[in-house]
C-alpha cells in the first residue's frame, strides 16, 4: 500500500543498509577507475612472470614493518637523464649515478638493472660502492635493451663471485644461488657471506660504452628489490596482490550483476507464474524447477568448460541458468501468499483476464522482493564464479581472485606462512559480497512483511 | 456474586503514530453462572479487553492502568508462572476469535485435548476425550483427525470442547460464530447456552452481531472506541437501547467483509488521536456542544447505565 518513496525512506533508516550502499558505491567507483586506468591487455601482463621480476617475490606487505618486522620495501631508480661524454677515438660514454641509504639489517631480495636504449652499446659497467668504501665492478658485455639483469644472472654474478673470492680467498663455486646479495650488502672480510649487513649509503654508478652514439632512455632503471611490497605483498612471481585485487574487481562485480539479474528475473517470473496459476501447470513448473535445482552447479560448469570456451557473459548466463531455481522457489511461495490476499480475488471476480491481472496486480507485488533478491543474489554469483576460478575455470585473459588463490593453494602458501597471499584475495571476495548482503537484508526486511502481511 | 471483574482497565498499543488507546478506563463484571455479552463494531476494543483480562496481550500491547479481579484477587499482579499453573484454562478459558486456527496444525485434535488434560494433571483417557467431544455434539472419530481435516464449525466446536476440558469457572468466547453459516452460528450459541446451564459456568460472549445473542445473554455491555457506552440487562436493552450508538448498532446489519456498519455513517475515530469529549460525537445524529467538550460519565437510566449527555 505504501509507495516507492516510503520504501526509500525506510531504507535510509537502516544503518546496515546505508553502510552497505556507501561501500557499494565505493567499489563501483573503484572498478570504473580500474577499467579506465589499466590497459586492456593488463591480464596477459599479469600472467607473464617475466613482467614481475622487478618486484620482490613472496614479500609481505610493507606495513608489517610497523609491527616491528624488518622487511624493507623496494627502491626503484628510474627516469634519470644520462650524462654523456665523448671519450675520444670514436668511443662514447654515457653514465648515471644512484645513491641510496640502506638501514635494514637484512639484505634486499635482489637488485635488477633494466637498460632501455636504441643502438648497440659495447658494454655496461656497474660500479657498486659500499658504505665501507669497497667497490665491486660489474661488466655486462653487449647489453640488450628491454632485458632485466638481476644479481643472480650470469652476467652479473660472475663478477660478484670474483669479488667474493678476493675477499674470502675461497673459490667462486662456494657462492650459492642468492648469496650474491650478501656479497653486495654485507660487511667485507673473509666472512663476507655471513657478515652482518652494512647500513649506510650505497653508491651505484653505471657507465655505458659504445662505438657509435646511442640513445639511452630515462626509463632505464635500477631496482633494489626489498623484502616487503605495497599494502598487500606479492606472490611467488613478485606480482603485487593489490594489483591482482584491483584487476579482479570489475570482473567480480560485472559477473555478479549479470548473473543475478538474469537468474532473479527469470526465477521470480517463473516462480511467480507458477504460484499464480496453480494446479497441474504449477506442479509441472515446480518439477521443471527441480530439474535445474538438481544440476550441481560446480561440477556441471567444470564439465561444460571442456565443451565450450567461456566468456564473461556466457559464464554469467550459465551460472544464472543454474541458480534461478532458488529464486523461483522463493517467488512461488511469496506468490501463494499474495494470491491469498483479497484484492487478487476481487480482480478475478471483476472479470479482469488472468494474464492482465498477473502483470498489473501481481508482478508489482513481487517487484520489491525481486529487487531484494537480486541484490542478495549478486554475492552468490560472485562466490560461485570465484570458486570456479579457484578450480581453474575462468574466462581466459581475466584476473580473478579465485585464480590468485588457486596459485596460493598450489604453492601451499598457507603452510609456508605467506598469509597475505591467501588472506587478501579471499577477504576481497568477502568485502565485495558484504555490501550486497547488507543492502539485500535491509531491503528484504522492509519488503517481506508488507508482502506477507495479511 | 461477582466472579471476574475489570476495574478502570486501560490498554494501549504504542505505535509509530502514537499510543493507540484500544481500551480506555473500562469497568466490567461477570457474576457467577452469568451469561454476559459485549457488543460493538469492529475495532471497538472488545478482543483487546478480553485478552487483557486473561493476560494474553502480545507485545507491544500492554495494560497501563486498572486491575482485574478474579474471586477478589488481582490476577494482573501474579507472576507468569503462578498464573499459568493456577488459573490458565483451569479457571479461565477462552474461545478465541478465529479459533479455527487455534489448534496446532500438526497434532491431532485428540492429542491436543489429551495434552491439555495431562499438563494439568487430569485423566487423559480416550473415554474422557470422547465424552468431551460428545458435549459439543462431535463424533468420537474427530479425535484422531488433524485440524485441517475438520470443517470450520467442527473446529470451532472442538475448540469449545477443549475450553471446557478442565471445567473452568469462566469461559470467554470471542466471536465464536464469525465465518460460520447462519445455522451453525445458531447451533453454537445454543450449545453455549446449554453448556452454561449443564456445567454451571459463567460465559462472557463477545460479538458484533446483536441479533444473534439477543436471546442468549442476560446482561450486555456496548463498547465504542475503547470505552463502554451502555450497560444493562438485555431485556431492557433490546426493548429500547438508550445510547444513540446502540440504537444504530441494533438497526444496522453488520457484514463480514466491511468494517463499516451501514446504519451509522462515518468511521471509528483514530484511537491514537482521540478528541476530547464523547467519541461518538462526529457520527451522532443528536450531537450537542457539550458532547465535543466533555466525556460523558456512565449514569443510571432506567435499569441501565449509559454514557451520553442526552440523559
Amino acid at each position: 500500500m505504501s509507495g516507492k518513496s516510503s520504501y526509500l525512506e525506510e531504507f535510509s533508516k537502516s544503518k546496515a543498509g546505508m553502510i552497505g550502499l556507501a561501500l557499494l558505491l565505493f567499489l563501483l567507483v573503484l572498478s570504473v577507475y580500474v577499467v579506465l586506468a589499466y590497459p586492456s591487455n593488463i591480464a596477459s601482463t599479469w600472467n607473464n612472470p617475466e613482467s614481475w621480476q622487478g618486484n620482490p617475490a613472496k614479500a609481505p606487505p610493507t606495513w608489517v614493518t610497523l609491527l616491528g618486522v624488518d622487511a624493507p620495501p623496494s627502491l626503484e631508480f628510474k627516469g634519470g637523464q644520462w650524462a654523456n661524454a665523448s671519450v675520444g677515438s670514436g668511443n662514447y660514454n654515457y653514465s648515471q649515478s644512484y645513491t641510496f641509504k640502506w638501514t635494514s639489517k637484512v639484505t634486499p631480495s635482489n637488485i635488477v638493472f633494466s637498460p632501455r636504449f636504441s643502438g648497440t652499446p659495447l658494454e655496461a659497467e656497474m660500479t657498486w660502492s659500499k658504505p665501507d668504501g669497497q667497490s665491486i665492478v660489474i661488466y655486462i658485455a653487449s647489453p640488450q635493451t628491454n632485458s632485466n639483469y638481476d644479481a643472480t644472472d650470469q652476467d652479473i654474478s660472475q663478477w660478484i663471485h670474483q669479488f667474493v673470492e678476493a675477499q674470502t680467498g675461497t673459490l667462486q663455486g662456494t657462492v650459492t644461488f642468492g648469496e650474491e646479495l650478501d656479497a653486495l650488502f654485507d660487511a667485507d672480510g673473509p666472512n663476507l657471506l655471513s657478515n652482518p649487513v652494512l647500513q649506510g649509503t650505497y653508491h651505484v654508478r653505471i657507465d655505458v660504452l659504445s662505438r657509435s652514439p646511442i640513445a639511452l632512455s630515462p626509463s632505464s632503471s635500477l631496482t633494489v628489490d626489498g623484502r616487503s611490497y605495497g599494502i598487500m605483498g606479492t606472490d611467488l612471481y613478485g606480482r603485487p596482490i593489490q594489483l591482482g585485487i584491483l584487476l579482479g574487481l570489475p570482473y567480480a562485480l560485472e559477473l555478479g550483476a549479470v548473473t543475478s539479474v538474469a537468474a532473479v528475473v527469470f526465477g521470480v517470473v517463473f516462480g511467480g507464474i507458477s504460484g499464480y496459476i496453480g494446479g497441474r501447470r504449477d506442479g509441472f513448473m515446480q518439477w521443471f524447477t527441480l530439474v535445474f535445482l538438481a544440476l550441481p552447479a560446480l561440477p556441471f560448469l567444470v564439465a561444460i568448460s571442456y565443451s565450450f570456451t567461456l566468456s564473461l557473459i556466457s559464464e554469467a548466463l550459465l551460472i544464472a541458468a543454474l541458480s534461478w531455481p532458488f529464486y523461483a522457489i522463493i517467488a512461488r511461495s511469496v506468490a501463494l501468499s499474495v494470491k491469498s490476499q483479497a484484492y487478487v480475488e476481487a480482480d478475478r471476480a471483476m472479470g479482469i483476464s488472468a494474464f492482465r491481472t498477473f502483470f498489473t496486480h501481481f508482478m508489482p507485488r513481487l517487484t520489491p522482493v525481486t529487487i531484494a533478491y537480486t541484490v542478495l543474489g549478486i554475492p552468490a554469483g560472485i562466490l560461485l564464479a570465484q570458486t570456479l576460478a579457484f578450480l581453474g575455470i575462468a574466462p581466459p585473459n581475466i584476473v580473478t581472485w579465485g585464480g590468485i588463490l588457486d596459485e596460493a593453494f598450489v604453492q601451499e602458501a598457507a603452510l609456508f606462512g605467506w598469509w597475505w597471499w591467501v588472506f587478501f584475495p579471499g577477504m576481497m571476495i568477502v568485502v565485495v559480497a558484504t555490501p550486497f548482503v547488507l543492502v539485500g537484508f535491509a531491503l528484504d526486511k522492509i519488503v517481506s512483511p508488507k508482502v506477507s502481511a495479511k | 456474586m461477582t466472579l471476574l471483574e475489570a476495574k478502570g482497565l486501560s490498554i494501549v498499543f504504542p505505535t509509530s503514530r502514537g499510543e493507540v488507546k484500544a481500551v480506555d478506563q473500562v469497568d466490567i463484571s461477570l457474576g457467577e453462572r452469568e451469561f454476559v455479552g459485549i457488543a460493538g463494531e469492529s475495532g471497538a476494543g472488545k478482543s483487546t479487553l478480553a485478552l487483557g483480562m486473561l493476560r494474553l496481550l502480545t507485545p507491544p500491547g500492554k495494560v497501563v492502568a486498572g486491575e482485574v479481579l478474579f474471586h477478589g484477587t488481582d490476577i494482573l499482579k501474579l507472576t507468569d508462572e503462578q498464573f499459568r499453573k493456577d488459573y490458565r484454562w483451569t479457571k479461565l478459558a477462552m474461545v478465541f476469535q478465529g479459533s479455527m486456527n487455534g489448534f496446532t496444525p500438526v497434532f491431532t485434535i485428540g492429542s491436543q485435548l489429551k495434552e491439555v488434560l495431562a499438563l494439568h494433571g487430569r485423566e487423559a483417557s480416550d473415554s474422557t476425550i470422547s465424552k468431551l467431544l460428545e458435549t459439543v455434539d462431535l463424533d468420537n472419530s474427530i479425535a484422531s483427525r488433524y485440524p485441517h481435516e475438520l470443517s470450520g464449525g467442527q473446529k470451532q466446536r472442538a475448540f469449545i470442547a477443549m475450553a471446557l476440558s478442565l471445567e473452568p469457572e469462566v469461559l470467554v468466547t470471542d466471536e465464536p460464530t464469525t465465518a460460520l453459516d447462519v445455522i451453525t452460528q445458531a447451533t453454537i450459541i445454543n450449545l453455549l447456552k446449554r453448556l452454561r446451564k449443564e456445567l454451571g459456568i459463567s460465559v462472557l460472549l463477545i460479538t458484533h452481531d446483536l441479533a444473534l445473542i439477543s436471546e442468549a445473554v442476560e446482561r450486555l455491555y456496548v463498547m465504542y472506541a475503547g470505552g463502554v457506552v451502555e450497560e444493562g440487562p438485555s431485556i431492557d436493552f433490546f426493548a429500547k437501547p438508550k445510547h444513540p450508538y446502540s440504537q444504530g448498532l441494533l438497526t444496522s446489519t453488520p457484514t463480514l467483509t466491511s468494517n463499516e456498519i451501514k446504519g451509522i455513517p462515518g468511521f471509528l475515530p483514530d484511537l491514537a488521536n482521540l478528541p476530547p469529549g464523547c467519541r461518538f460525537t462526529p457520527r451522532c445524529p443528536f450531537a450537542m456542544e457539550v458532547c465535543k467538550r466533555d466525556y460523558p460519565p456512565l449514569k443510571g437510566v432506567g435499569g441501565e447505565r449509559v454514557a451520553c449527555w442526552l440523559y
Partner: protein
Amino acid sequence: MTFRRFLVVKTISYAVALVATVSILYVGIYPSLQRVIKDQATAEGQQFQQSLVRAHANLTQKQIGQQVAAFKATFLAQFGFNQPLPVKFALQLQNLFTFHFGSSYFTLAPNGSNQVSSIIAAYLPNTIVLFTTGTILVVLAGSIVGLLAARSAGGKLDRSIPFIAVFHSSLPTWWVGFLFIAFFAYTLNLFPSGGINSVPPPVGLVPRFGDFLLHLTLPLAAFFVVNVGGFAYVIRSLVFSTMGEDFVLTAKARGISNNRILFRHVLRTVSPSIATQSILNVASSFAGAITVEVVFRWPGLGLLTYDSILSNDLPVIIATTFILTIVLLLGLYLGELCYGVLDPRIRSG
C-alpha cells in the same frame, strides 16, 4: 493425498527429473563426451592391435589394420556412433546410467585400477561422509540457534544472527578452509592440514577412527561455520512468523509453558518448512562442500574433480559430474521424503 500416494508420486517425479537433469548435463558435455569416447576407441584399438600382433605373428600389416578398424567400429557402435542422434543419445545415456565411464587418462583408483567407475567408487564415500555429516550438523545447530533466537526476540543472540548470516552469503567455504589451515594446522598445530588419515595410519580400529575424526574436524568445521548462520537466519524468520500465529496464543491460554510451546508446538509446525529449507541448503552448500575437499585434500569427488582438471582427465570429470548430479538429486529426494513424513497433511489421510 495418502503418504503412499505421495511416495509414489514423488518417486516417479524424481526419477523423471533425474533423466531430464542428466539429459541437460548430456547436452552440456556432448562435445567432450564424443571426444572421450573416440579417445577410448583409439586406446582400446591400440591395445587390441598389440594383442593381435602377439597372438598371430603371421598376419600382414593390412590384415591387422582391417581388424583394428573393425574393432574400433564395434566399439564406437556401442556408443551409437554413425547412428541417428536419438539412438546415440539413448545408448550413451544408457552407458552413463550403467556406470560405463571407460578408463581414465591418468588417475588411478587406490587399488590400481584405471576404470573410472572404480575410481569414483573409491572417492564417493568420503564425499558422502563429509557432506552428510556437515548438513546434519548445520540443520540441527541452525534449527536450535534459530529457535532460541526467536524465543528471545531482540536479544543478543537474535541480533547477532543476521551478522552470522552475512558471513554465510559472502564467505567462500574453501577460503575459510585456507584460514583454518593457516591458523589451526600451521600456527597452532592442533589439527592435520589435510588428507583423510595419517600416513601411515595408526594401528587398531579405535586409534584409526580417532585419526579419521581428527582429519575430518577442520573440513567439517569450515563447512559448518559457513553454512550454519544462513540456516539459523532462515529458521529464525520461520519460527518468528509462526510465533505470531493464532495457535501459539491459544496454546499459551491453555496453560502450556513457553518452552513446551516453542519446542513442541512451534517446532513441529515449522519442521516441514525446515525440511524444505534443508533441501535448499543441500543444493546451495554443495559447491562449498566439494571445494572444501580440495583445500583439505579430502579424497572425495571434489578433490578428484580438481585433480582431474589439473591433469585434463576428461573421462573422470564427466563421470564425477554425472555422479554428483545423482548424489544431489538423491539428497533432494530424501529431503522431500522428510517433508512428507513431517507434514500431517501428507502423512495422514
